[in-house]
């Protein structure tokens, strides 16, 4: 028997080992080679973790496909550079302002077909309003974040951000690159002028906000608030609530004038070859159980009305029509049409 197999030479051994190694590495890919691949975008951090560990694999198993998630922001320039007939993504997940820019360039479909996405029937009106391209699957509330250990007292209005006592500890965003900053600029128009589109009033208000510490990402603002580098800042509720249970001296303030909406929006690209799967993914992300799991992980308010969150989350997130009615949506189409002009002006305002 041994003779029949022949002697195990070093060459044979190495060849067999290499084949075995390559086979082991390649096996999962070979086995799934026939599975269709849905290319999507998504955030990193906790969102990315749970998508990779639970939500994504569950979708892959149910729909017999492979989910390829790009979490390297920014997404839109990559979509912009790819072919319209073979786009880099099938489903794009990003904030509403970018979705509007993408829709204006014809890179994403402006609306989701309710017939192909049955769960669309259960979302709050804001999620499919005329201020939204595609569908908003979650929202955060943009308001004020404050340190509770500095004796600032009870903050109830956006206008308190302009109080001189916050000079040196006031936090805001790089408006040209940050959705919260852009939404806040529109809020300034409402607070001090005739409405969201009163840019002159907004610019004057922004001038008066100085000195202010500005950052590009909300994650950076969270760190600054936690370290005490800022005491009062513009932030979304998730950026405060995600530290729940860690005994941090920070709190979220919903100003009396209303909170701005920071929507997490899904759109489908017109050139996608996976339209059926793309619609299935949007529908899946709107399922109550998926919404509940994600909402309770990242502290986003679910768009599906049927979602029942645990009491802790339900108390803080926007889960009833009354709470949702506090949301102020930004007219991103209007904003994007003037973005260059706004950017030039705010870059001048905030330069050192």
């Amino acid at each position: 028997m041994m003779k029949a197999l022949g002697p195990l030479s070093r060459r044979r051994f190495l060849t067999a080992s290499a084949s075995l190694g390559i086979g082991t590495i390649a096996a999962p890919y070979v086995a799934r080679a026939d599975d269709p691949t849905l290319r999507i975008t998504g955030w990193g951090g906790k969102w990315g973790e749970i998508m990779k560990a639970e939500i994504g694999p569950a979708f892959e198993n149910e729909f017999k496909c492979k989910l390829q998630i790009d979490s390297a922001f920014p997404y839109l320039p990559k979509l912009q550079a790819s072919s319209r007939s073979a786009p880099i993504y099938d489903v794009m997940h990003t904030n509403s302002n970018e979705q509007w820019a993408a829709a204006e360039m014809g890179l994403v479909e402006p609306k989701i077909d309710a017939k192909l996405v049955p769960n669309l029937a259960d979302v709050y009106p804001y999620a499919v309003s005329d201020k939204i391209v595609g569908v908003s699957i979650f929202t955060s509330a943009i308001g004020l974040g404050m340190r509770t250990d500095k004796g600032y007292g009870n903050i109830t209005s956006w206008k308190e951000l302009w109080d001189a006592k916050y000079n040196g500890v006031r936090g805001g965003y790089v408006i040209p690159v940050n959705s919260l900053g852009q939404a806040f600029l529109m809020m300034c128009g409402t607070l001090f002028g005739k409405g969201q589109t009163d840019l002159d009033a907004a610019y004057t208000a922004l001038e008066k906000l100085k000195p202010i510490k500005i950052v590009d990402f909300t994650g950076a603002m969270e760190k600054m608030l936690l370290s005490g580098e800022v005491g009062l800042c513009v932030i979304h509720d998730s950026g405060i609530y995600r530290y729940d249970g860690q005994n941090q001296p920070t709190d979220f303030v919903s100003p009396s004038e209303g909170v701005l909406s920071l929507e997490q929006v899904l759109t489908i690209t017109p050139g996608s070859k996976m339209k059926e799967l793309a619609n299935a993914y949007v529908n899946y992300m709107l399922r109550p159980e998926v919404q509940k799991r994600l909402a309770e992980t990242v502290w986003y308010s679910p768009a599906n009305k049927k979602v029942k969150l645990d009491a802790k989350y339900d108390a803080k997130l926007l889960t009833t029509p009354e709470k949702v009615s506090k949301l102020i949506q930004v007219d991103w189409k209007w904003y994007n049409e003037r973005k260059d002009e706004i950017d030039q002006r705010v870059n001048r305002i905030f330069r050192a």
Partner: protein
Amino acid sequence: MSSTATTRPNGLALFILPSALLFALFFFLPIGLMALMSVLTGNPVVMPKVAFTARHYARMVGDPYYLEVIWTTIRIGLVTTLVALLIGYPLAHWMARIKSRAGHALLLMAVLAPMLTGIVVRTFAWMTLLSDKGVVNQTLMSLGLIAQPLKLMYTETGIVVGLVHIYVPFMVLTLTGVIGRIDERLEQAAENLGASPLRAFLEVTLPLSLPGILAGSLLVFALAISAYVTPILLGGFQIMTLPILIYQQISANFNVGFAAALGIVLLVISLMLVIAYNRALGLVSGQRELQ
């Protein structure tokens, strides 16, 4: 002399082919595409009707803001280069002239050690030192020397501090080689003829090390004007430089044409510097053919 002998391809030239191809593919092609995009109304690959335009350059010239950004970028580059030179030259001179092998190795390690850590990490380290709640301000406040934190971050000075820390090794390593090749006996001869050590340095060593000064300065300046991470983190977007503006145009305004035009301006600044460097080097070394 036969013409066939002169036109026969050199076999060794084939060895250059891979690097020439690499250079063409990853250097000339991207820059060519960038130059093309800067004069087009859109991306011809994905848009049906694209025309030539000068609007991106006109926008830059027509708005003083962009000229201010260009000047800020150049100013930060110049100050960084000057400070890196002032810090780097004595260090390089010491390294080049130190007799002890162990001493040279220690100095070299000291210069190279910061380069073993990423730029982002080093910049964050500066942030922990320079921020309002950072080590410097907290120490000064606890000692009662200041009542309010000093504004060390979000200033051009903060950016220059961070950039100098990152680029001093480039200056030192460039200078060390040049200074090391200067014959020490020239300085000794000058001193024998009655020159003081300072005069010997100023009239012998310094002029002979000018090629190194120019090369190091060119390297540091080019790196400083194209730096992105450090100006963004230490400048907090309140100091706008060309690389930040380019990123902003790509990532948030999706205006590839304007970003390309800004990139070309940055490239032209660097090219002008290289040409000036070659001219200066030619004049200094007397090698006019370098021009």
